[in-house]
């Protein structure tokens, strides 16, 4: 193992998480490649990226489950390599896969995890009750966890992670595979926790969830390709403009447009075609001409503000 504790001279008490050139290799594969970012205390920080982009590996390093190959990270003032035990008592973690005991009931799971975090006796009883109410688990306390629906399971996992009142909550795709209503309820919970001062570090695939974060980092193939607030990313970090075309048939249009050089990105959004162009003045007429030549009817064509997805796709490409 190479050096994994660079001096974090820049640590400030306002930071909940600092990563500096954090890298992790598995053999020759570089899962996380010299990434640096900061999470301020009290914010909801969205960590975005496709599957296999390095999100979970990064989280495992922050929790001290994996050692960095190089670089360093500091969580709540402690180095992740040297003091993981200090970090663990102040952090709550909800993993990607449901990982409480399905053969225990709700209360038994909460009791076990509460005590695991050294919360005992009356304090445990009080906090467990608060967590059960907060997470909407009233009425299923004695239910075997295996029998709970997906949304309940996720809220139970969250409840188990907050019994020790963590300063930082790390959630790895907590809403993957959960229905839209349950997703919205879950995010309401995260907002309540953030309002109480808990820092939230959350990974997600969903752009609507990303929009709800205070700040975002987008990781792609182990590299961070964009960071900032959602509006900052949309307004300032897009290279080129998004042209939205309503035409018929859109699939054929996509084929035509892909043959045009200098267009950064062409993609289908429902029945609409999105094209990213560096020079709208020159390229829009070119697009219209190409579609007309192919006898594709254009119902409307306009430059629109980019969505987060537009930015991330554009950033991921280059």
């Amino acid at each position, binding site marked *: 193992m190479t050096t994994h504790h660079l001096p974090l001279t820049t640590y400030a008490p306002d930071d909940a998480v600092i990563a500096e050139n954090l890298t992790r290799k598995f053999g020759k594969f570089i899962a996380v490649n010299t990434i640096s970012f900061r999470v301020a205390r009290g914010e909801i920080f969205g960590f975005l990226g496709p599957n296999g982009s390095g999100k979970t590996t990064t989280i495992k390093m922050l929790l001290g489950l994996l050692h960095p190959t190089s670089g360093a990270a500091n969580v709540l003032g402690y180095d992740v390599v040297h003091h993981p035990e200090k970090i663990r008592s102040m952090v709550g973690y909800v993993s990607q896969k449901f990982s409480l005991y399905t*053969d225990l009931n709700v209360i038994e799971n909460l009791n076990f995890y509460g005590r695991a975090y050294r919360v005992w006796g009356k304090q445990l009883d009080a906090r467990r009750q608060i967590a059960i109410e907060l997470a909407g688990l009233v009425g299923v306390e004695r239910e075997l966890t295996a029998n709970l629906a997906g949304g309940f399971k996720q809220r139970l996992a969250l409840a188990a992670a907050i019994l020790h009142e963590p300063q930082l909550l790390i959630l790895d795709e907590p809403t993957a595979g959960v229905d839209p209503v349950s997703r919205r309820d879950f995010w309401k919970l995260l907002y309540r926790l953030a309002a109480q001062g808990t820092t939230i570090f959350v990974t997600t695939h969903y752009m609507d969830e990303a929009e709800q974060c205070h700040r975002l980092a987008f990781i792609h193939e182990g590299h961070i390709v964009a960071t900032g607030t959602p509006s900052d990313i949309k307004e300032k970090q897009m290279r080129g403009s998004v042209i939205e075309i309503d035409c018929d048939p859109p699939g054929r249009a996509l084929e035509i447009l892909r043959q045009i050089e200098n267009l950064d990105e062409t993609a289908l959004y429902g029945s609409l075609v999105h094209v990213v162009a560096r020079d709208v003045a020159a390229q829009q007429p070119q697009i219209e001409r190409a579609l007309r030549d192919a006898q594709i009817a254009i119902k409307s064509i306009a430059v629109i503000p980019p969505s987060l997805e537009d930015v991330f796709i554009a950033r991921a490409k280059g």
Partner: protein
Amino acid sequence: MHKTILNLAWKETLQLLRDRLLLAFMVIIPVVQLGLIAEATGAGIRNIKLAVWDQDKSAFSRDLVTALKNSGDFNLMYYAQSYDEIRALVNDGKVGAAVIIPPDFSRELARTGASATLPVIIDGTNSIVASSLLGAVESAIADLTRQFVPANAIITPIDLKIEFAFNATLNIRWSTIVTQLGFITYQLVLVVAAVGFVRERELGTLEQLAVTPISRLELLLGKGLMALGIGMLNYTLLYLAIRYGFEIPMRGNLALLMALGVLFTIAEIGVGTLLSIVTHSQQQAILMVFMLAMLEVTFSGYLVPTENMPWFMQTIANFSPLQHFSAILRAVYIKGSSLEMLWHHVIPLAALTGITVGAGWYLFNRAEW
């Protein structure tokens, strides 16, 4: 720290109580195993074919033969007239046991203070059957002696001179049952310990445990405590069943038997933990337990006495905790051996315990979550 360990052990207990398969394994296997042994060693054996060569031809010898016949255990098939005839009957498998009453048997018995010798030949091919045969002969003779000797008289012992026709080293009656005490505890503890970590790894719950402030040592101790609890509960219940259900007299020191049981259980927890760390699924872990169990039972001296094995097998047997513990059990329970007489088994067992637990701890500490 102790609260954390108890929290873990309690969680494991709750899970165990919900795991019907494992519970069945804990309850049914010992009951079935002991029951089968009981069937094989106790009342289950009836109508053993018997040959008698009565050279005495006295009233007493006839009573002895009648007593054997009436015991219900024997089916008197042949009155033999010579040793060769007796030998042939046993060798050909026509009888399972033969009793030779010497010419002066009743006279010897009548002489106060002397003991009469009664040669018995038993087919020892199946050690379980052989030991029950021996028991049946013993009890028939004991009944007879009680009948014929007044209660206040000094009971003249009848010295059974036993010859095992095919398994000359068959040693002591009941050793089979007592050995089960070790076997059943072994299976159970090994399985419980072997699935301990790999189960959580497979279900993804180990990672969730890893991010709590619970240390690796606490985790290991919590799981170990649970396995030790189950193992010793099982051990104690089996002991009670053997002692009072099967009425096999315990000749040794109970505290010693229990203390060495704890040592053995910890050794097997160490082995199980090692298996749990090197395997990737519960299925793998269970298969490894089965392979190991087959080897260790072979080496334990249950089927063939260890001291009769070739030297290289004896060498391997030295590395089996079960082999040492089986020997310890037989010695303490049946012979009443003290700790001083057992160092040659206790020291290797303690060393193996240290090695397995140490190796388990070392590997567990190095493993990435």
